[in-house]
């Protein structure tokens, strides 16, 4: 699965290890990953405020150690790089097993599904912001466009979710397209303000255009996705074991998020992705080298928005309720924070950011009112101490057969 090699955007060296060394690496990796995921899963399941505090302190401790010990960092990176197929397989396995582990606590499965939905949206924003470098502080607009389109079609016209889903994405893309035009003329702060204003206007219109959105009543009783007679809120029973219906949504989210990751990887590695990055790095030079900057910016906005819409549509049908309160500025900031904290442009980082920011606030519920204060404080600290995100995007990923390079070096040489 070369497509899923997103953990390490590094050069791959040819594997010269012996079988014994390989096995040793795998065992170490297996133990470490089991430990990490084990701690992670326990952390998710914690209910007690004291334990949650302890858990978060543990994470911070590990992060500090990792920052202070470059050798440890180096070692872990090396290990991951050399065994990426193994690591990826393990990751996918954990993701698939996750709902089975928490079968008696469907809320955690629900949270997993929610994390997948936010991962889809964060990956969408990552295309606009991470790849093309366009600030978008109004991403909730596309979330809303997808959610309203698909849910209103389902409620009023009985349109199936499977049709509403792409339509929601397309409608969101249209909204992205709409703001892309004025956005072409502005940069930096001004672009941020334009998208911010766009988000504010759209949220007001969601409240006031009652004929489209049901206003502040919200869209209620949105039917769950259905296949034939069976719909997603009927639990599947296999061999006498009833699996909670949240698992249906979880796997739907997981599949869609997986697809989004795949698409993101392909876009990033394509000529298109390279041109987006060129625009992000140096717009004037990009223009001078035949890159149609306005067109590509519009494409970036629309593509990003499309995924926002997809996430929105799934969200609407999963929660069964859509309200303008879902699409306020704080939602946009949250999605933005997922991308920034994860590491702009790094697909794995963004997914991890989405998962963390969906789950951690839930865990912080134990602190009740202090939740937002802690969130704000953490955000400030991250901006100051790690503005590039947890997993900064590394550029040295394009792999070249080193012998060909060597040959050319030898041939050209210094004359």
């Amino acid at each position, binding site marked *: 699965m070369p497509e899923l090699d997103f953990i390490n955007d590094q*050069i791959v060296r040819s594997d010269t290890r012996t079988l014994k060394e390989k096995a040793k690496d795998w065992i170490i990796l297996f133990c470490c990953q089991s430990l990490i995921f084990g701690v992670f899963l326990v952390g998710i399941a914690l209910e007690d405020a004291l334990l949650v505090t302890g858990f978060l302190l543990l994470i911070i401790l590990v992060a500090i150690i990792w920052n202070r010990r470059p050798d440890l960092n180096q070692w872990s990176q090396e290990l991951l790089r050399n065994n990426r197929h193994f690591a990826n397989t393990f990751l996918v396995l954990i993701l698939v097993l996750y709902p089975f582990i928490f079968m008696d606590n469907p809320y955690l499965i629900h949270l997993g599904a929610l994390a997948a939905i936010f991962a889809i949206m964060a990956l969408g924003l990552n295309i606009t912001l991470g790849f093309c470098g366009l600030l978008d502080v109004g991403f909730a607009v596309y979330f809303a466009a997808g959610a309203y389109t698909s849910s209103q079609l389902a409620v009023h016209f009985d349109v199936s979710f499977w049709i509403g889903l792409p339509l929601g994405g397309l409608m969101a893309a249209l909204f992205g397209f709409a703001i892309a035009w004025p956005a072409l003329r502005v940069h930096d702060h001004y672009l941020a303000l334009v998208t911010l204003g766009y988000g504010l206007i759209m949220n007001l219109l969601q409240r006031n255009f009652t004929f489209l959105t049901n206003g502040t009543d919200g869209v209620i009783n949105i039917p769950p996705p259905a296949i034939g007679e069976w719909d997603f809120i009927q639990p599947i029973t296999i061999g006498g074991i009833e699996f909670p219906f949240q698992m249906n949504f979880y796997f739907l989210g997981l599949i869609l998020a997986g697809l989004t990751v795949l*698409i993101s990887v*392909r*876009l990033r590695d*394509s*000529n*298109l*992705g*390279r*041109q987006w*990055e*060129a625009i992000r*790095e*140096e717009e*004037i*030079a*990009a*223009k*001078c*080298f*035949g*890159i*149609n*900057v306005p067109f590509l910016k519009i*494409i970036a906005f629309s593509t990003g928005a499309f995924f926002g819409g997809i996430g929105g549509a799934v969200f609407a049908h999963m929660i069964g309720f859509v309200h303008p309160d879902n699409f306020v500025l704080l939602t946009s900031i949250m999605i933005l924070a997922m991308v920034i904290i994860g590491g702009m442009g790094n697909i794995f980082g963004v997914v991890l950011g989405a998962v963390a920011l969906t789950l951690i606030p839930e865990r912080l519920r134990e602190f009740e009112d202090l939740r937002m204060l802690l969130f704000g404080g953490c955000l400030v600290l991250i901006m100051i101490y790690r503005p590039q995100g947890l997993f900064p*995007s590394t*550029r*040295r990923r*394009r792999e*070249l057969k080193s012998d*060909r*390079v060597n040959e*050319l*070096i030898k*041939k*050209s*040489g*210094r*004359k």
Partner: protein
Amino acid sequence: MEPADLDNTILKCQGLTKNFGGVLAINNLDLEVQKGKITAIIGPNGSGKTTFFNLVMHLYDATSGQVVFGTENTNLLELPTHSINRVGLARTFQTLRLFLNLTVLENVLIGMSSQLNSGFGAALIKPKWAREEDKLAEEKALEILSLFGSRLISMCNEPASSLSYANRRRMEIARCVASQPKLILLDEPVAGMNPTETREVIKDIQKIHEAGHTILLIEHDMTLVEGVAEHVFAFDHGSKIAEGQFKEVSNHPAVVEAYLGKQALKQ
């Protein structure tokens, strides 16, 4: 002034004028660049050289006049910047504009992007032709990098930000070459370099010229101009004040005056 060979003209300006809110940066400029030659533009700071490049690339809108390019007489002032590259012009920048976080190889590939066909669909489906195209493009990019010896090619997987200053300049030239232009515009290619580096760049430029590229360059460094330019234009206050061989131009009284002031001329 010898009559210009019309069939051999690659770039032609007529009455080109640029007015920045009352300041005439380019004033009624006429000039012709010959195909296959290295042409240089000299002139003191603020004489409108870079503005001229920006007008040719349509980064600014001209106030009046026209710029005609190639045998098909394309009017560049009517084309958006990105199409100008497709017509066959590529430029470097006085203040380097590299894609710093992209690798050296990717920088060159960006130079070739207008020749690549793969768009959105191809990126997602990755059909065979797109993969082939990618492979060919990389191969070609490596070849272009190898024009500059081992300096760039050994760094091809490193981000452009890790290059030394001189190599960044080379990188820009390589990127230009990659877009297979009919005319390369070089904006002060040796600015800030020491004499050894300058000599090497002169060699590089000549090598590219030998490979069949027409070059128009802006330069302060007279050793470079003398070393490579077959034809020289001198600018002052947005107008062309002299043209011809380097020797003729450098001794032209208007040029001396422009560089050293009236006082110098009297002495």
